[in-house]
């Protein structure tokens, strides 16, 4: 029974000065066709590494994939050669990068860049590609397309650039879209506009999405299901409603609390602050150093994802005890 998109026992490590560091350890995660899956977690949790691993964009070395498989339509992406993955990039799987400021090549106009991608991936002629580029600008709601297409990236605002990048990501009708914090480095009003645009496009094109964000609120606007990533491991998994209303893992709770609902609310930063020298232990729960309720078992055994009703899963020893 092959899922549409599936991670299995994926382990990605970085060779560093201090030795090999594991940054991703995903036992099992699958995304259904047409679904929008959200991935949340603090910076450094491994979200972007995951996105890069899918498209084989990881800098190797220092990174290397220790084991595991990423299956897309039944085929293992990690086993594909550079030439084969090239045919998938942009055509079947496309990506929106997190930093709109540096994703466009500064020495070409935006039009040249879009036209080049269209020519390359869809085999269009220059005139056709140009027409398509103007259409794309209309789709991402950029006014005065011709003018924008003749501009260099540095002449455009962050929001405009991100819209162009979104246009590029949707240009070749990929079936799978990775959105790696597309609203990062944008201010709040523009964030809302860009998110709305992405949501609309996803609805229209019925594309499967892996949406990466750093807050549950952001992800909940786009996604149906969400996974919480902590130090390279999925600690909680479930539908948006389940995770947001009944957070089972205390890390999820902290993530939710980190954003104040009302002015009166105090932000609880005690749990989320992480000591720099703290290192991932060989065994036991990776959250134990920051957990306020830790017990003996947490130090010894690594928690597995446990089914706790509906589509809700959690990786915590203590949850089981609560249930009893």
């Amino acid at each position, binding site marked *: 029974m092959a899922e549409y998109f599936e991670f299995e026992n994926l382990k990605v490590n970085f060779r560093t000065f201090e030795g090999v560091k594991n940054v991703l350890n995903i036992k099992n995660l699958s995304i259904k066709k047409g679904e929008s899956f959200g991935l949340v977690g603090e910076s450094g949790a491994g979200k972007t590494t995951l996105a890069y691993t899918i*498209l084989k*964009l990881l*800098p190797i070395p220092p990174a290397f994939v220790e084991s595991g498989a990423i299956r897309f339509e039944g085929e293992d992406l990690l086993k594909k050669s*550079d030439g084969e993955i*090239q*045919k*998938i*990039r*942009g*055509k079947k799987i*496309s*990506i929106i*990068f997190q*930093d709109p400021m*540096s*994703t*466009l*090549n*500064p*020495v*070409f*106009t935006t039009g040249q860049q879009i036209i*080049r*991608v269209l020519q*390359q*991936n869809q085999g269009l002629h220059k*005139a056709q590609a140009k027409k398509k580029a103007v259409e794309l600008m209309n789709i991402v709601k950029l006014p005065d397309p011709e003018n924008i297409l*003749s501009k*260099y990236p*540095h002449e455009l605002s962050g929001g405009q650039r991100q819209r162009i*990048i979104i246009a*590029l990501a949707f240009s*070749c009708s990929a079936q799978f879209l990775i959105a790696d914090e597309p609203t990062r480095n944008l201010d709040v009003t523009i964030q809302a506009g860009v998110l709305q645009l992405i949501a609309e496009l996803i609805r229209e094109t019925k594309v499967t999405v892996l949406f990466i964000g750093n807050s549950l609120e952001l992800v909940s606007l786009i996604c149906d299901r969400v996974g919480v990533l902590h130090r390279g491991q999925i600690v909680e998994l479930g539908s948006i409603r389940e995770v947001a209303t009944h957070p089972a893992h205390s890390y999820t709770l902290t993530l939710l609390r980190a954003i104040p609902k009302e002015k009166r609310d105090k932000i609880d930063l005690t749990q989320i602050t992480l000591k720099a020298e703290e290192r991932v232990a060989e065994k036991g729960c990776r959250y134990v150093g920051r957990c306020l309720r830790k017990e003996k078992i947490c130090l010894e055994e690594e928690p597995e994802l446990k089914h706790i009703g509906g589509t809700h899963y959690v990786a915590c020893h203590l949850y089981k005890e609560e249930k009893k």
Partner: protein
Amino acid sequence: MRKLLPIESFEAIKPRLKEFKLTFYLLNRNRLTMIALITVFLLVLVALLAPFIVPYKEQVFSGVNPQEKLLPPSREHPFGTDELGRDIFSRVIYGTRISLETALAAVGLALLVGVPLGAIAGATGGVVDEIIMRITDIFLSFPPLLLAILIAAFLGPSLTNAMLAIAVAWWPWYTRLIRGQAVSMRERQFVRAARATGTPHFKIVFGHIVPNTIAPVIIQASMDLGGVILTAASLSFLGLGAQPPTPEWGLMISTSRNYFLNAWWYSIFPGLAIFITVLVFNLVGDGLREVLDPRTRKY
């Protein structure tokens, strides 16, 4: 029957025209660069039209005129005459042609070898990078003029060999320059983005990395044109480049050493020609640096 051009053809020209106008406008803002650019343009014109400008065409290469030897500058001979009675003005004008040809060919050859190698080394990394860079290290461990002398000595002294020698001594600099830039480009987000859209490696190297790294190389090359003219003149001065009776500036100065005390004009005018040419090429290189890079443009 009159054939109407399709309207698209005009549309296609528009952005190019706009680009050209902008570049010209920016260059015009910088007076010194503009003057230098006009001088370069004049030099090129002089080089191209040399046969039509010179008053004593038959004296340029051969022709001995003993009764007119070593005459000071006058109306008939604006730069005077040399030890064989040849008109120095005519020879300096022809020298422009020879110097520009040599410089362009040498720098062009060096660029043709250096730029692709550097871009490939920087963008690919690993063993390829290591091999290419060690080769450049070997070439760079020779002083450039000495290397050029060595090659000229092996191949025999001639202008073509001097040009080859200069190119061989020069290309590793471009390789290094491009490679350093290309390495910093490799992990840039837009290169990653290009890869994520399925662009093949060689297209990334020549379509994304080279255009982003070429600006400093163009500046370096236009500045080097001056340096190469100087080196070519030096080689000729040492007798390893152009051979008499070629009207090469360095060679003329070399010959003039013997007559310097009596005939100042013999060495001054070829020297001035070298000085002005090298200076304007350097100035143009400086100006281009500001204009060609969209990030350092001042509007």
